[in-house]
């Protein structure tokens, strides 16, 4: 299967996502320039972390109107796999591919550190290699990662199993202290109803090598590949 890493102006996480897929997973991957109008030939699109358009106005707002995003939206509607990481998650909510929105962390500051994620749903292409309630160690690096949805939508997300990751403590409890940014219901990652689009604030591409402190992020990418192979 072939991965595509979208390159938005200003973003920097493209490099890290590309490195992980190519050098660690050894899977085919190419960069896709933001002005492209087609994403043909790709099987999974990665919207990377970083600061597209300097995160000006608000994270993801300006990138959402890059030409390539229309193609990403079509691709997603046709069932293509899309993973948005951090800023990429913001682009996906801005583009309406995922519910809710991300805004200023409750402490207003940028935070860079490891977090513990609890896997809430293993019935997605991104998490089928994982166990329900499994704990993952994956870092965050953001100042606008506070996930918000209204109560009605939250209920719908719960009912549909769209909540994929929650921030938790070492014991798997979704405590307030474990929530780094104030996200509603400790949500760290959500998928769409059809589960082919996942957005998450933590950076799995930064947790792909033991020397970087964790390989837990790799399992998400491995799930994608396994899912894909199963589908062929």
């Amino acid at each position, binding site marked *: 299967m072939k991965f595509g890493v979208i390159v938005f102006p200003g*973003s920097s996480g493209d490099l890290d996502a590309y490195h992980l897929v190519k050098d660690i997973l050894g899977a085919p991957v190419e960069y896709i320039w933001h002005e492209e109008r087609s994403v043909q030939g790709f099987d999974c699109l990665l919207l990377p972390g970083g600061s597209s358009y300097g995160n000006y106005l608000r994270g993801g707002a300006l990138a959402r109107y890059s030409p390539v995003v229309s193609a990403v939206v079509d691709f997603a509607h046709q069932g293509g796999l899309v993973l948005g990481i951090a800023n990429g998650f913001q682009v996906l909510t801005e583009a309406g591919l995922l519910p809710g929105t991300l805004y200023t962390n409750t402490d207003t500051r*940028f935070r860079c550190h490891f977090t513990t994620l609890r896997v809430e749903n293993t019935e997605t292409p991104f998490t089928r290699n994982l166990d329900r309630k499994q704990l993952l160690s994956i870092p965050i690096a953001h*100042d606008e990662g506070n996930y918000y949805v209204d109560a009605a939508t939250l209920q719908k997300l719960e009912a549909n199993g769209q909540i994929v990751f929650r921030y938790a403590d070492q014991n798997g409890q979704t405590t307030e202290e474990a929530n780094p940014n104030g996200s509603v219901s400790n949500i760290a990652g959500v998928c769409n109803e059809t589960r082919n689009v996942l957005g998450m604030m933590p950076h799995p591409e930064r947790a792909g090598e033991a020397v970087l402190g964790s390989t837990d992020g790799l399992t998400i990418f491995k799930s994608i590949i396994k899912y894909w192979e199963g589908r062929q």
Partner: protein
Amino acid sequence: MRPEEWRKLGLRDDEYDRIKEALGREPNRLELGMFSVMWSEHCSYKNSKAVLKTFPTTGPRVLQGPGENAGVVEIGDGLAVCFKIESHNHPSAVEPYQGAATGVGGIIRDIFTMGARPIALLNSLRFGPLTDERVRYLFEQIVAGIAGYGNRIGIPTVGGEIYFDRCYQGNPLVNAMCVGLLEIDKLRLGKATGIGNPVILAGARTGRDGMGGAAFASVELSEETEAPDIQVGDPFTEKLLLEACLELINNGDVEGIQDLGAAGLTCAVSEMASRGGTGMDVELSKVPCREEGMTPYEIMLAESQERMLLVVTPEKEAKVHAVFKRWGLTSTTIGRVTEGGMLKIRMHGEIVAEIPAHSLAEEAPVYYPESKEPAYLKTTADLPLATIEEPEDYNTVLLELLASPNIASKQWAWQQFDYMARTSTLVGPGSDAAVIRIRGTNKALALTADCNSRYAYLDPFAGGKIAVAEAARNIVCSGGEPLAITDGLNFGSPEKPEIYWQFRQAVAGISEACRVLGTPVTGGNVSFYNESNGEGIYPTPVIGMVGLLADATKYCTSSFKAAGDLIVLLGDSADELGGSEYLALIHGRVQGKPPALDLAKEKALHHVVRTAIQQGLVRSAHDLSEGGLAVAVAECTFENQLGAVVEVEKGVLRTDSLLFGESQSRVVLSLAPDKLSALQALAEEENVPLHVIGRTGGDRLQIFIDGNQYVDQTVAQLRTVWQEGIPCQLP
């Protein structure tokens, strides 16, 4: 012209005469303005040049020493590391967020100008006490500004240092350091060569911001100081500029390139032409401006950020513009390289300034300011130890030291920095030096920035020397081989003989340490006039050092790793409390002589520590600095919450010297007991004193001296106090 005109611009009467001589006539207003910024202290180093010449600047690895935008040092595999530190003190005092942000932006440009990809940022910060409201504001905003720029451009901020002292109350220090990597054959210099070659200005539009910034940096701050229009950082544009320039350089499309920093276009055109032995003919109406009606004076002197000047061949001109366009950037051909060394600046064809490039860039006067040993040294030097009462309760003293913002964890700040970007950070903030792997090789870089300015105040020579040694010790404790330094020299007004004396002494101390430790100076920055309302800061010569790990897997961190390990102290302790954090915090005295430093011993220590790490003998290494032995051991227990029992003998020492003294050339190691004999053999060979002082384990830190317990605290308690030291002072 009337004397007020040049004096207003900060030029001396004899400088004005020199200008007339260089031109063979009276300058016009624009020409005078150009001279005033280029001959300002900030750009010309006129007060420091002669002294800086005494630095050792060569070595087998040095590809580019001082004089270019940044230094370059070879690291094998066809690669080189490019790095530099720069101050942004005055802008940060006035507008802390933007001042710090543009400081980061400026130093990043210095690195990619050389054709290097920036891979890491560090910073060195100084503030007044956090009990002051304005200081808290400065601290929060400066940290946020550094984060705001570095994080957005996607370069990890991996290390630095932060100190608090009353002397920085009105004049905080913000020094930013950037480190980049390049393939040696891609090295580009800021030279204008090739007669007729187009000169291209790329990046942000030119606004009226930062007018006279160079001059502003060259005066003392006071209530009345009129700040130039503040520059706002635009990390998004800089990221595009960085990618576009590196693409061009890597494809060999650029002849010469230089960023626009202090003194804006004036500096870039004159330096590039001067270095290339050429001239330039520049048409200012072509410069894209942000505001209408900007005058030639404003266009030539504005310090708008995120701009680059490039010299390319005519064949490449169209391609270069196309690349900038693809990155969404404006670029314009504004002139040509000419023969004969003359800068001709035109507006709509008409010449508005005509100056020999060399005279602007290189012929600023060189001064040898008067220097005189400050009187205060007579009173500070003497520290009769008998007058210092030894504490009764060492537990309390240790807790107080750990809570002191100078020693307490800086996590509140560095957690705001994206130190993991580029997924190459093997050791981020929180240990001794940061370690960054170099993709595609087995190597890694160790990076640090250090200075103890209290030492520099009490003895500038020793302070400079110790700063280099401490930086090297941090590199070594991380497993690196010290390669070279960049220096950020922050001082008060050079017009005061006492301050100039401090400056000369510090440079001499740095030079001596660099010679012995084999770490040449490849560049740096001088920031004078760090005074507010007549009060100078402590001399603060910050050392940014780069080290190399030939094997990236053989790095080391400061924290204890396993229970039952032996704890070893390398180096000897003496009754040295002068300039210590203990003396200042507990006894309220900034006094005495800084601890003695024997560079030969220091070097031997480095050898032992580095070899021990390489041979896999030790599991942790941490140098002793502020707070001495007790603080260093406590710091080792925090990360893995692994306690220790330490047993030492006092000998002839005072108890407080033993626990909190800051004697140099000491390192705490932890190692599996079966590795001790190998370590002992190594230490013996190099004549480095080795003391087994305890064992790791448990959840407490206990320190016994001659069998009596002096410290007994849970690691959790010590750690909490250390972690809360800074946040608890913020609302």
